[in-house]
């Protein structure tokens, strides 16, 4: 018998209801946390790790994000414009990275929060990847939990997704290796004790094709037997709580780490390079349900 979060039974029902009632002010916001049972990226970890994911250390951290959202900042809070607990932002994060007319390029939730703070609230921008930014970003993303990721791929976004794809396929760094070499060619294998995930939304769909490409070895047998999924999304479950880091982190930190690992240039947080990469990664995860904050070793 599993111990369940109190709202879990209602989740399915509210998941549907949320879409229909976004505009209804009468409807109290039911914030859904991370649901390990809906995370196709967990298969590759031990049963014990998956057990932890049902009650991860991040449980309860959305409440910190909510408090920051409702926090008074010189007479205003985020809730002043976005409704109590951010109820008017339900669904908003499914479109991020999102094209910004003024900037003429896509932006992250972090950019948007900073512009609300500086341009509309007379506050200072939040420091990149510090606790407050990560908590608020996680909270705003989690407001869309259960809704499908829907990043725009046409119109003005097409160009930036293309740039992201180019960056993804390009060999970089001292190791002269591209994202795709680790995450697609080597997907499902071990690199320095870490299972490589393929950040796309293919899920179980092309499992056989991908496994067929793996060299015949016990690992391949094990994965086939486990019915492993390959494409386990990315933007849909980030920010995550990573046990190695012991805290919540956004995908910006992940991407910088991936650059560092191959001794490539590490760009600034929120730079065009990473925004385009996130846009591309998001575009190939479109359709996956938002499930934030994810949980990884």
């Amino acid at each position, binding site marked *: 018998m599993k111990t369940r979060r109190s709202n879990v039974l209602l989740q399915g029902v509210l998941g549907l209801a949320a879409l229909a009632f976004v505009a209804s002010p009468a409807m109290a916001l039911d914030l859904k946390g991370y649901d390990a049972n809906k995370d196709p990226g967990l298969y590759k970890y*031990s*049963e*014990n790790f998956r057990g*932890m994911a049902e009650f991860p250390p991040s449980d309860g951290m959305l409440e910190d994000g909510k408090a920051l959202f409702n926090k008074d900042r010189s007479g205003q809070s985020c809730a002043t414009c976005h409704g109590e607990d951010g109820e008017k932002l339900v669904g908003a994060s499914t479109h991020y990275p999102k094209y910004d007319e003024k900037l003429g390029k896509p932006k992250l939730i972090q950019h948007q929060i900073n512009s609300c703070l500086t341009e509309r609230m007379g506050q200072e921008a939040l420091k990149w990847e510090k606790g407050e930014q990560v908590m608020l970003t996680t909270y705003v993303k989690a407001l869309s939990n259960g809704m499908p990721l829907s990043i725009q791929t046409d119109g003005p976004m097409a160009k930036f997704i293309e740039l992201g794809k180019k960056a993804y396929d390009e060999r970089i760094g001292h190791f002269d290796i591209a994202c795709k070499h680790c995450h697609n060619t080597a997907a499902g294998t071990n690199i320095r*004790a870490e299972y490589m995930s393929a950040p796309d939304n293919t899920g179980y769909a092309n499992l056989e094709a991908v496994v067929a490409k793996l060299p015949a070895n016990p690992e391949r047998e094990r994965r086939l037997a486990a019915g492993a999924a390959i494409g386990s999304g990315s933007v849909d479950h980030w920010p995550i709580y990573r*046990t190695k880091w012991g805290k919540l982190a956004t995908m910006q930190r992940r991407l910088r780490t991936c650059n560092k690992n191959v001794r490539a240039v590490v760009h600034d947080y929120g730079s065009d390079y990473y925004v385009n990469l996130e846009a591309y990664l998001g575009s190939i995860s479109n359709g996956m349900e938002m499930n934030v904050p994810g949980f990884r070793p």
Partner: protein
Amino acid sequence: MSNVMDKPVSRRGLFSTVGRLGVTAALAGGVMSPTGVAVASGHEEKLNKSVERYMGAGEVTYEKVTIDAPIIAENGRVVPVKVTVDHPMTDDDFIESVGIFVDKNPIPFAARFRLKPGQAGKAVVATRLKIGKSSNLRAIARTNNGKLLGGLREIKVTIGGCGG
């Protein structure tokens, strides 16, 4: 607090050979099923003392205690560990405490859970530990009669739990 909970663990013979033999025997074989390599002697001493300090002196019989933990921990910083003791929890025959030790951690003692008969329906406890490097994990249960039961489990850690 009940009597049971207050009862201090016996510190008699903190350095006695009895306790030491208990743990050493586990590594050498005997009643128990050793799974790991013996730790360096200085450290073994530390481990023995630690077990004695928290569980009391006495020979450990390695049976009836099962440790559920990953064979290879994804990350040593957070390793889920569940200990199940196959023993009654009745008022006159129960598990008084369950201790968990990581043989190769700089400080082997990880946790001790003091249980109460009647209120704890089963002698099953779980937690999550930091494990610095591949090591034996040792769970020791003490019955209300002072008998020590133990379980051993080897855990491989590729990404350690104690670094910066």
